[in-house]
């Protein structure tokens, strides 16, 4: 007499389990299969190829009507199970009850829908089953159709690529900083984004959805929290799944995130098993298919009364999007005793990272060339000893004993029309032509092409082009690399950021072949500055890549307290401001009040948690941050000028205030100090500042490149101008040139030593078009930079960061 087995849910896991069951225990079970979808088992993993038009539904059906019939399965498709009655031992469906000896629950998971306003509009769908797939496919029939996918994980990207293949205009909205953040690190996420964009799929990362917009009950677009509105005809939410536990919960089974099962896949009721995406095993839930197949086998054995145990294994992820080749497996966090092996080939867009622990490979992330993925996955799963292959491991099984990666690869990968010399607009092919025409030294190349003949910052790149073209016949001068993460110099990296339009830190690290996964404390602040300077309004400032003073917007002192310096425009203050400063000093028990050399007041010894409050108080009195901590404009020191002084020739204080108002907030490679003196007696000490103005009867003498710190250097005269407006334009232009050309942490005098005063005069004084373009670029960037950091950080979202995460002083003392 066969026993009654009821299977609830016809997914991939239960289909596989039935196969095992009929194979190992034929004739033992009388099976009833319930499925809420009006169809049987099909390969859900293959929905993406169906959507993309690569496969049809018929091709992905795993079990057809014949199969069910030949195994005597009673199919109740399209019928929902209402409840499990454990006392009467029956399963109650919409069309009546069925008695059972055993039940297998395989209810799978539900897509999670973010409860945004408008999530219940028509045309807002998840991506879960064939119906959703068909809805997306039908959109392709409409010319000019637009779709938005919320969620840049595996499923969301497959939905996006599938719809794109149907001719739909697709935008992916992802809340995290890079795509597939659970499976990929930042570098691989960057490459993935790049290849999706090459397929004309728009990708917005770090994007927060705010509201789904609709007209007449149908979706019409999406609004982000920054106000951007994106129109669409269909919105697919693919943000994750939740185990479907409702039925089990209602039957009184033990349920956590999923239905609790033991190693034999048995729930808290010995007659009821569960498997697939609906279960929770040792605290883990499942979304990928490999472990589900293992569970199916174990469940079939358990039903047959044979001992079997499910053990979770390392799972590998592959994305099924044509042309986006990625692979990730195992654990790729950095750690003590763990070593990274990173290989990047910018020319082919390849990134590979292996994580080793001792003699074992424990994780792998690959993009662009994933052919060896299975091999690496095998090494991870089998805990193989890889110490013998250590040196050549990353090249895969076919390449044991090969050459190390080429440091010139990044330059070799540049196309012929890539600009190498920005000053003179010389591209790579021009230099190569000159070399092939007989130029064998750097000065030949300079003479013939003008490349690296102006500011010289591209010299390193020109030399690398020469090394590549001349081969062994050319020896590159030894230059100091930016940091141990890269063989390139600061200037090489700056040029590549511009010529290859690299707009994120991950992009720079990939395209320039960084040897570490996320840089170090010396390259990260530099890259953050370069990107901020070169892509104003596009690159998002990264607080975590800034030194503490710039991140906290205060100067850290040796005891861990901070100093607070409000801006005093041109060194001018008022009784009201002084009162507010005195009140703040009292209220926050400031240890020391000091007048600085830059003509303002420093409040020293403020505790971190008081910073937002003292800033709010000073803001309320009309003062803003003096940015006394910034690699940016510090102060414009002035004398009293023609207002009061019997020698003053011009309004030096007024001009100083105008300059400070125009230039504050700009980030620069190193600090910038300025001064305006009302006459050649130079009381404001203009001749030891980065930019100094000395007023004379006929106008203004502009000085640059002075310093009076570690290094003492008088300024050089750049030019003389007639009006205040000209002072502002010339100053903005020279600061912008410095911003664009200097290495990070290089003061203006040092940059001037490197490029020469002639170059600066040429770009800022002689060539009026160049000057105006520089000033325009400066003021454009200022639109994004001139925000008072105090006002920003006294908002609640930031405030929390200044307070302790928790206070356990009482707790632990108990």
């Amino acid at each position, binding site marked *: 007499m066969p026993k009654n087995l009821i299977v609830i849910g016809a997914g991939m896991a239960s289909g596989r389990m039935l196969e095992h069951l009929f194979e190992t225990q034929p004739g033992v079970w009388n099976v009833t299969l319930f499925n809420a979808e009006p169809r049987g088992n099909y390969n859900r993993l293959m929905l993406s190829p169906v959507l993309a038009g690569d496969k049809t539904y018929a091709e992905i059906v795993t079990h057809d009507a014949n199969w069910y019939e030949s195994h005597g399965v009673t199919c109740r498709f399209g019928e929902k199970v209402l409840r499990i009655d454990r006392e009467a031992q029956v399963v109650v469906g919409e069309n009546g009850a069925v008695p059972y000896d055993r039940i297998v629950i395989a209810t799978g998971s539900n897509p999670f829908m973010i409860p945004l306003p408008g999530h219940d509009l028509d045309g807002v769908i998840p991506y879960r089953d064939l119906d959703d797939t068909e809805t997306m496919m039908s959109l392709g029939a409409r010319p000019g159709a637009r779709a938005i996918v919320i969620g840049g994980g595996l499923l969301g990207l497959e939905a996006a690529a599938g719809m794109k293949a149907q001719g739909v205009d697709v935008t992916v909205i992802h809340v995290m900083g890079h795509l597939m953040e659970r499976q990929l690190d930042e570098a691989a996420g960057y490459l993935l984004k790049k290849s999706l964009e090459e397929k004309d799929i728009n990708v917005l990362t770090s994007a927060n959805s705010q509201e789904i917009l609709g007209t007449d009950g149908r979706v019409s677009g999406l609004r982000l929290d920054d106000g951007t509105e994106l129109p669409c005809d269909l919105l697919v939410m693919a943000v994750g799944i939740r185990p479907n536990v409702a039925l089990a919960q209602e039957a009184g089974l033990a349920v956590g995130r999923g239905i609790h099962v033991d190693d034999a896949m048995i729930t808290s009721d010995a007659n009821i098993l569960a498997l697939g995406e609906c279960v929770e095993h040792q605290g883990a839930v499942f979304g990928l298919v490999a472990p589900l197949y293992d569970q199916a086998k174990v469940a079939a054995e358990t039903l047959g009364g044979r001992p079997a145990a499910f053990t979770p294994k390392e799972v590998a992820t592959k994305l099924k999007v044509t042309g986006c080749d990625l692979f990730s497996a195992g654990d790729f966090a950095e750690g003590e005793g763990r070593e990274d092996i990173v290989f990047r080939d910018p020319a082919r867009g390849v990134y590979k990272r292996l994580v080793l622990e001792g003699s074992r490979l424990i994780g792998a992330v690959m993009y662009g060339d994933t052919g060896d993925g299975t091999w690496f996955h095998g090494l991870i799963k089998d805990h193989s000893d890889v110490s013998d292959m250590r040196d050549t491991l990353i090249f895969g099984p076919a390449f044991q004993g090969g050459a190390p990666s080429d440091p010139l690869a990044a330059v070799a990968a540049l196309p012929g029309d890539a600009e190498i010399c920005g000053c003179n607009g010389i591209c790579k092919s021009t230099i190569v032509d000159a070399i092939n025409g007989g130029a064998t030294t750097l000065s030949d190349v300079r003479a013939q092409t003008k490349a690296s003949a102006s500011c010289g910052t591209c010299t390193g790149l020109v030399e690398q082009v020469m090394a590549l073209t001349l081969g062994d016949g050319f020896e590159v001068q030894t230059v100091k690399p930016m940091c141990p993460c890269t063989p390139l110099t600061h200037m090489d990296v700056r040029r590549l950021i511009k010529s290859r339009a690299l707009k994120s830190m991950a992009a720079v690290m990939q395209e320039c072949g960084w040897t570490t996964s*996320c840089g170090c404390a010396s390259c990260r602040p530099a890259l953050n500055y370069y990107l901020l300077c070169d892509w104003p309004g596009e690159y998002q400032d990264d607080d975590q890549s800034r030194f503490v003073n710039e991140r906290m917007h205060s100067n850290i002192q040796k005891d861990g307290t901070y100093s607070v310096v409000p801006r005093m425009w041109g060194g001018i203050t008022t009784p009201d401001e002084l009162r507010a400063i005195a009140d703040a000093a009292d209220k926050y028990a400031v240890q020391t009040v000091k007048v600085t050399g830059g003509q303002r007041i420093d409040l020293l010894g403020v505790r971190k948690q008081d910073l937002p409050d003292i800033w709010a108080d000073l803001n309320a009195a009309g003062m803003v941050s003096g940015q006394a901590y910034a690699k940016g404009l510090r102060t414009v020191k002035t004398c009293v000028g023609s207002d009061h002084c019997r020698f003053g020739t011009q309004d030096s204080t007024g001009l100083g205030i105008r300059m400070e108002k125009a230039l504050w907030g700009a980030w620069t490679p190193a600090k910038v100090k300025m001064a305006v003196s009302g006459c050649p007696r130079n009381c404001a000490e203009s001749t030891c500042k980065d930019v100094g103005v000395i007023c004379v009867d006929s106008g203004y003498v502009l000085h640059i490149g002075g310093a009076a710190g570690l290094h003492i250097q008088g300024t050089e005269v750049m030019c003389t101008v007639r009006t205040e407006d000209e002072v502002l334009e010339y100053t903005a232009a020279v600061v912008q040139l410095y911003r664009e050309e200097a290495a990070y942490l290089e003061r203006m005098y040092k940059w001037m030593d490197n490029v020469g005063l002639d170059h600066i005069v040429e770009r800022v004084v002689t060539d009026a078009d160049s000057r105006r373009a520089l000033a325009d670029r400066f003021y454009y960037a200022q639109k994004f930079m001139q925000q008072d950091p105090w006002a920003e950080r006294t908002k609640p979202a930031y405030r929390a960061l200044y307070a302790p995460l928790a206070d356990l*002083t009482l707790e632990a003392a108990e």
Partner: protein
Amino acid sequence: MTDWTDIGALEDIPERGARIIKTHIGCIAIFRTAENEVFAIDDACPHKGGPLSEGIVHGRSVTCPLHNMVLRLDTGLAQGADSGAVNTYATRIESGRILLDTAQLRRERVA
């Protein structure tokens, strides 16, 4: 014996950043790495007591903001040519919450 105490949510700490918690034995810095791991170490550099929670986090290391000593977050040991160490404290993450083993703090007091 361990005593896991909830000290906050993972997302309360910026990625590649840190927050501090106050305890009777001093401030402890709680770090979050780019890979979303959490580590707890004393918030005082063995060199001159600099607040490590304000340093730049790279990989599983932090660079002290005062004089650039680099310390491992998982072992508390100084890297490179420097020597020195800070105490580390056991943490784990459960459903997005950070748990700290406070039994260790009590032992520190007894010791």
